[in-house]
């Protein structure tokens, strides 16, 4: 099947405006402009595009929350892509940028916005500068700016750089950062659709989500809804990393590919690195629960891992082989969360700090059984108390590894206890 999002893998140089247009580019926008905004929103609703940032909230419904009528509104493209093991949005914007710009324009038209901000993860500076060319070309080609394609619809597009913060992938933290404030989330309500960027109604969509929009407009909602499963329509980019032979991004139809195929399939990762045995994988980076070999039969879709106690998330799959020290892995990921915690709410700020401290002690061979219990208690006492999802998910590495690999912790603290006291 031809790629829907990763069209650059089928069409060379589609990042250039003329190549994109010659291959059906901006046809979705033209179609949208021929419809009423309500019709566009309904089309996206009918297609059932779910958010690709991880939460899977239906994009059409999100758009429909925007107030009707005049007044300043914004579209914000979430390109903060910071989840551990995620690198899909970068490829989309580097190689097929116009599809995202087009998707954002359709969103802007649908909700009545005239301004698009693309919020770039700070570390993606080089890629963002490259993307400036696409924006310039789109302005020159009449796809951005005043009276787009003679329709009377105006829309501007700006790139904005973050400073490199995981939390700024959280939509309210992203908006704060965009407005020049400290990148900290706010307690919702207000939701961005009520008061987002500069306190105006705002839609925040992931890059990949918006890239799904133009094909829907061109091919129709039915076409899209027929792709994938009942609950997960369309295609998904999966980011494969870790101990596999051929890591990288792969576009798959939802529900049609299992994690086993992703790892061992010839089209995909072609097996484990160095032929090692599989131990565990993190289906959604550090913030999703770790799963064991039995979950390899689960498929890539929003519901595909429910039976295994985990979730697809943004489909950043980190594969770990038999040699992986799971306590080390938990420490590594916990360190990440501790480093990225914004510090706004108490449980996350303090909890991640103490989780890391305690893991560190265990890793260094100074831990005790009590430390394992402390980990357990801290992780559980953070749950359900944090201001945003970062803190809620930051306990996943600890809770997941304690659940499945407790004996690895125990063996580390036993080593210590075997040493006679002086």
């Amino acid at each position: 099947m031809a790629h829907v999002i990763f069209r650059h893998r089928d069409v060379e140089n589609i990042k250039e405006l003329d190549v994109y247009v010659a291959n059906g580019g901006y046809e979705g926008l033209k179609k949208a402009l021929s419809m009423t905004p309500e019709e566009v929103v309904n089309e996206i609703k009918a297609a059932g595009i779910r958010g690709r940032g991880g939460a899977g909230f239906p994009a059409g419904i999100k758009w429909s929350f925007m107030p009707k009528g005049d007044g300043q509104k914004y579209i914000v493209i979430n390109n903060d892509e910071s989840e551990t093991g995620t690198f899909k949005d970068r490829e989309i914007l580097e190689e097929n940028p116009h599809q995202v710009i087009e998707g954002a324009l359709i969103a802007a038209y649908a909700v009545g916005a005239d301004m698009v901000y693309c919020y770039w993860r700070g570390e993606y500076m080089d890629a963002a500068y490259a993307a400036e060319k696409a924006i310039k070309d789109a302005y020159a080609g009449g796809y951005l700016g005043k009276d787009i394609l003679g329709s009377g619809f105006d829309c501007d597009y700006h790139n904005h750089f973050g400073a490199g913060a995981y939390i700024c992938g959280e939509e309210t933290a992203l908006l704060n950062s965009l407005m020049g404030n400290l990148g900290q989330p706010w307690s919702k309500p207000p939701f961005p659709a009520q008061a987002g960027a500069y306190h105006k109604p705002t839609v925040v969509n992931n890059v990949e989500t918006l890239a799904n929009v133009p094909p829907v407009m061109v091919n129709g909602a039915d076409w899209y809804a027929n792709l994938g499963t009942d609950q997960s329509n369309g295609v998904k980019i999966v980011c494969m990393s870790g101990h596999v032979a051929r890591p990288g991004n792969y576009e798959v139809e939802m529900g049609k590919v299992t994690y086993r195929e992703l790892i061992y399939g010839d089209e995909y990762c072609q097996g484990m690195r160095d032929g090692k045995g599989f131990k565990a994988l993190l289906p959604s980076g550090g913030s999703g629960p770790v799963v064991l070999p039995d979950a390899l039969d689960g498929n890539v879709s929003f519901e595909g891992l429910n039976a295994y106690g985990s979730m697809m998330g943004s489909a950043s799959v980190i594969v770990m082989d038999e040699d992986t020290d799971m306590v080390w892995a938990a420490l590594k990921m916990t360190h990440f969360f501790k480093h990225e915690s914004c510090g706004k709410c108490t449980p996350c700020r303090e909890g991640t700090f103490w989780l890391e401290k305690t893991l560190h002690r265990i890793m260094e061979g100074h831990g005790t059984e009590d430390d394992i219990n402390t980990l357990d208690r801290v992780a559980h006492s953070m749950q359900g108390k944090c201001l945003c999802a970062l803190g809620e998910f930051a306990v996943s590495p600890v809770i997941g590894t304690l659940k499945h690999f407790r004996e690895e912790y125990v063996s580390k603290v036993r080593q210590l206890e075997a040493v006679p006291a002086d």
Partner: protein
Amino acid sequence: MSETVNIIVDGIEAEVPKGLTVVDAAKMVAVDIPVFCHHPKLEPVGMCRMCLVDIGMPMFDRETREPVMDDDGNQQINWGRGMQTGCTVRVADGMHVRTTTDHVIEARNTVIEFLLTSHPLDCPICDKGGECPLQNLTMEHGLGDTAFPFEDKMHNDKHVPLGDLIALDRERCIQCARCVRFQDEVVDDPVLGFHNRGRKLEIITYSDPGFDSYWSGNTTDICPVGALTTNDFRFGARPWELKPVASISPHGPEGENITMSTRQEAKSGGRVVIKRIMPRQNEQVNEIWISDRTRFGHHFADADDRLMTPMVRKDGVLQESSWEEALSLVATKLKDAGANAAGLTGDRMSNEDLFAFQSLMRKTVGTNNIDLANARIGGAEVTAKVGVGTGTNLGEMGAGDAIIVFASDLHEEAPIWWLRVKQAAQRGTKVFTFNLRETRLDTHTTETVLYKPGDALDTARALLNGVKMADSAGDGGIAAVAKAITEAENIIAFYGYEGLTADETGSLSRILGNMLLVNGNVGRVNNGLIAVWPHNNTQGAYDMGINPAFGPGYKEIAVVGKSASDIYTEGSEALYIMGSDPIGDGIMSGRDKIGFLVVQDLFLNATAELADVVLPAQSWAERDGTFTNGERRVQRYYPAIAPMGKSKADWQIIGMLEEKMGGGKPKFAASLVFKKAIAAGVPQYKLMDYRSLAQVEKQYPDVGGEDLYYGGTSYDNKHGLGQQWATAAESGEVEAFDIPEVKTSKVSGIATVRTAALYTNGSLLQHSELLETRMAQPRIMINEDDANGISTGDEVQVRANGETMMLTAYVNGVAPQGVALLNGVPHIAGVIDAEIIKG
């Protein structure tokens, strides 16, 4: 109370105002939901997570909208997916709240434990220890034990100066952002912020000098731990050693309610001393905020150079004397001078002092030569008729209302009013400023009208005409502003004296008074005129009749006495000056024309140095009394410290003099002066006494009291909210005022105007060492068009009226074209024609 909703908190049914947060609503039914980051005066953020509770709503069927019932026939409650922060959720009709379930308790335990694991636990040396919300809530909700090893704690800097006034202990900080939010939301001085993230999140200041705000001390009150402390109080005392004394600020016309914390201590030689000043809640006056001038400007009270004993000039030298000797001499001289005597006062003393003074001069000495020594602003007789109505509360001004500020920089002159006008603007009140330059308020105004020097009265007249002719007003200019003003439901007008003489302000008050009369914006709540008086009891001085033309209660006097300027030019046989320094202020050239000069003051000021008798008065901190603020609210203050030396309260000194001159016995107490003299002699004060002034009522928001979580402040007002006296307009018609022609100060060259500064290096503030670096420096600001080769940093000579000042020049875009602004210099009335020369 406005619209209400019904909620159920832990089974208690309650009707609470709509829009309240769950935390504040629960408080109304005596359910304490603990908080750290939440403060009812700040926007909710929900970041400390201490207030997590169960919040549920009655369930309705999605299709039919019918209530969903349980087996017992009660409507089912949807408790949602998890706990919610009570500080961010607003109450809704039918809402259920549970604050005592196991997981709520567990959440509190957890948050407390997390906070404490990163907290230094140095309570035994912490200034907040004993009144600390973290301590209190730990006692209530803490586990008392932890699994986290103490040696793993993160250690941070404990002595970080956030400027000269406030110190930060980064280790104690619990990152609640109350200080940051206060600076951003409440006072619009966004000079604090967070730096870094995660456990390294720390408070920093962006400004230079650090923490540059007139409000910085308030952050130490609302800090729920000992992270922010004032350098005034830091390590000064333990809170439980302190005795709270209710008082009123001795600075500014707003009448800030304060609490003085005092302690008797060995290091002060066994004296009772003021350790700190904190706000006292009065929602009508200062809410729970005070300016840093009030907080740090108390050191004059127990300054070493206070006058300790009476002095009499002998052999050309002032020598210590007994009260008996000094008073006998004064009594004799005043009596001898009789109608040729004169009395001048400042406007900082209590009503009791001022009433007694004029009574002595008028009745016992027999002269109407009574005036304020340095009256900067006129119009008291106007505000007595059309001042703001009784019950006026700037905190209630909102959308549909208008506030006018004329010839005043409220931020410098009356910061509490600036704050409350700014907040009214944020609530939708239209604010209009009329000034000869831009001021701090202008970012919040609907319209800023800038007039040229000398054009203030013409501008006010144009405004008055515009209001009169609003229906036929054209577009643009003052007419449009006037039209917008007439559309307001309530109008409050402030007027000040920047660039105006006292005579000009008198006319200005009349013009503005007439403007308010056009549509009846007088005599009722939230309408009327307010003079931005220079000092804390200027209003009281006028009320008590410190004026050659009217007596107590603005009663006109048949034989008008000499005014202060008459006395300075013509002299007097015997002059009695109370609490003022006309020679130091440069308005009295010397004492050559004065036969006998007696000065009663706190300090040996320039006038006192030339006096024949010097009498040591007590500061406000040593005695009780009343001040009347610019909104005509009479407020009581209480004695905090023992008298310095042999000093006496001004009213006592006057009483003793009166006795020596054949009057009656002196009163025993200030309360009796008020009851027997003031209430009897000033009709407006008839219904007041010390008991009625001490009355309090429950105030909202509830930020004081015995609660565990707002503690650490002295917000509670147990000693009186004061009483406003009613203007003439409240009891009958007021006729339009005549507007006397006055000489307007216009100049041909660059108009030089003195602007007020909050921290002025006068006899009071110079005793507050902490404020030294913040004191307004003598400088002149010039427009670049007028600079004529002068640039920022140059030393320039400013010559006017035969005197020369050396000032540092600033060509910084502040002064409008044709105007030079003098800052940090003594008061100069009106616009002066100065020569500005480089070098």
